[in-house]
């Protein structure tokens, strides 16, 4: 069985309709919404601010504390509220991606709290979350070299596709589905976050990198427009 056409009829390198907007949470120092089609993420940033308890402080640099939450009703089968291993892992990799572009030495001993909330999920939630968080950090006036942009690349059967939906993640025909969430920095084009789950020959990985690069550049343009005041719906 060959994955000749995508389930939702998109082109292989086509990203779902993007929504992007900043300033969605009034109490936060910075906030943003980012959506890939039906996957909607909100991010809120607080800080830098004093980190308590003191023993958690790093005297040389500040830290980013990233918390990722899926609302119980964001998915078809209710997700029990509260942190779990998956959400903790995503918080970690997202936090590292964001830390790679933030000047953490500027305020040692402090913390920047980043909260990612998934309102509605159709795969690629961590990518939507990282995109929202990057905008929220900039919106909060955090000193950063550049933004990061994130997208899920997949190998569905033998096709390299951009921006997976849940049905593609669950695809079992042919070579099955390999999910590769990819985050790149906007100006220096470095890889800030990378995960892979599935199977893909090394020889094909170059195509994945190409697809990610193209997609991240497109996504960055939306993040930029939202920061410059557009409410992209």
């Amino acid at each position: 069985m060959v994955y000749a056409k995508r389930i939702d009829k998109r082109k292989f390198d086509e990203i779902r309709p993007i929504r992007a907007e900043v300033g969605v949470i009034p109490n936060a120092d910075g906030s943003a919404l980012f959506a890939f089609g039906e996957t909607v993420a909100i991010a809120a940033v607080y800080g830098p601010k004093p980190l308590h308890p003191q023993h958690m402080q790093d005297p040389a640099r500040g830290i980013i504390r990233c918390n990722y939450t899926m609302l119980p009703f964001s998915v078809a089968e209710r997700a029990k509220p509260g942190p779990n291993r998956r959400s903790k892992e995503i918080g970690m990799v997202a936090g590292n991606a964001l830390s790679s572009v933030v000047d953490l030495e500027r305020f040692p001993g402090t913390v920047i709290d980043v909260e990612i909330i998934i309102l509605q999920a159709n795969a690629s939630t961590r990518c939507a979350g990282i995109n929202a968080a990057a905008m929220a950090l900039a919106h909060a006036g955090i000193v950063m070299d550049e933004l990061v942009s994130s997208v899920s690349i997949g190998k569905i059967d033998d096709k390299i596709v951009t921006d997976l939906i849940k049905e593609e993640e669950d695809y079992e025909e042919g070579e099955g589905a390999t999910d590769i969430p990819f985050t790149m920095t906007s100006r220096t084009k470095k890889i800030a976050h990378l995960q892979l789950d599935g199977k893909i020959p090394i020889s094909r990985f170059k195509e994945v990198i190409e697809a990610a690069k193209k997609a991240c550049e497109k996504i960055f343009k939306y993040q930029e427009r939202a920061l410059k005041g557009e409410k992209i719906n």
Partner: protein
Amino acid sequence: MQLPNINKKRIALLLKEGKRLDGREPLEFRDIEIESGISVNAEGSSRVKIGKTEVVVGVKLDVQEPYPDQEDKGTMIVSMEFSQSAGERYESGPPQMDSIEIARVVDRGIRESGFVEWDKLCIKKGEKVWCIFIDIYCLNDDGNVLDASAIGAVAALRFAKFPVYDKKEEKVKFGEFTNESLPLTERIPFSMTFYKIKDKILIDPNRDEEDAADSRLTIALSEYKKEKIINAMQKGGIAPFSIEELEKILAHSEKIYEEIFPKIHERINSLIKR
């Protein structure tokens, strides 16, 4: 920054003259906005904004065993969480209103009103009933999260549609929806929380006013045969209420119900029609 003493004094001083910092009357609500369809994966969902306070609420349904003493009735679980983004909560000082308390008060307002026809949620007596999960999430706290949560919960219930239930396999097909709404009656709950600052009463406080309050009283009402029925009450905070204050609050609650409830009802109706 936590509420400064001088601001607390200012709020009390203004209230003595029946005024508030944002120009509202003591018994005046901020603008209430309601939206539906926050998550397509929820059986029903809503977003409620009261001023800058914002909550999102989702209803999820599943089929489970009933409670042994209510074998032919559906069940309901209400949960509430403040997202950490809701607002700065400080290392010391008063915590936000407890999320567990909010969940339980919202639950009682709905459960006791007769709004949900629990027996119509029975699939197979003693074995299979529908369970309603209501999950409330506060995204931005600018005071009065409880009332916003209650409005959001009722709205989400009214927007909700049953998922497809495969009778043969006895399983819910999550992601597939019917066009059937939940079995709800006309006895729609509406709650309002009264806050006391010194000896003045106000409703719908913003964050500062809520921090300045000495105590509060939530009243959940529903209407039955033109009479207002109290389905739940909850006093919070330390300062006691006098009997006169309680009677005044009960009188106010009827008036406010008549002012605010129809507008909310209309708004939800218009969203359902779409």
